[in-house]
């Protein structure tokens, strides 16, 4: 299936995944690591091991860190 993947603050990609592909597969397809991002569908985070059920997602590179 074809999915539009918008990487917030960067580019939007058209990605093809298998019909049983997961959101993690979409993330890897745009050269990001599932551990470094949150995938959002209609504004809500989705589990990355969940099968893709939509044709458009946003991927947010997590903004995080902390004091020493």
């Amino acid at each position, binding site marked *: 299936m074809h999915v539009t993947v918008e990487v917030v603050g960067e580019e939007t990609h058209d990605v093809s995944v298998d019909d049983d592909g997961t959101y993690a597969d979409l993330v890897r397809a745009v050269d990001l690591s599932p551990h470094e991002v949150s995938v959002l569908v209609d504004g809500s985070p989705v589990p990355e091991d969940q099968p893709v059920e939509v044709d458009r997602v946003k991927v947010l590179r997590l903004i995080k*860190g902390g004091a020493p």
Partner: protein
Amino acid sequence: MNSLRLRTDARDAILAHAREGALTTPPSEVCGVLGGRRASGDDGADTDAVAVAEPVANVAEDTRTQYVLDPAATVETIDAMEADGHDVVGFYHSHPESDPVPSRTDEQEARWTGYVYLVCHPDGRLNAYRFTGDAFEPLEIVDAE
């Protein structure tokens, strides 16, 4: 592009937010999104300029020493900023109990290459950096109205 213009009211908002975090028990890091104009924008500006600073909830496991901008709230904030005509310039967070400089954790976790990371302390100190992809490049903060 080694300076950052920062509007006075945005600076005040950032520090007020930092002071709120410092008053919790234990003190907590606060964070948010910086909006304004990026130097690469169409208007030809050669310096990033921060016009607004919007708080976003810190959803880290230990907010005393960590920060994670709430993902859904971050996207919502960015969408609202862009609808208002602002670019996302970068992000801010506070160090309520240590100096406002990027920690090793900050360096390891940074992912927004080219964007500004501003670190502040409730006592009024702020430092800004551009993440190059490998390191934080210091920026001189220039006050702007």
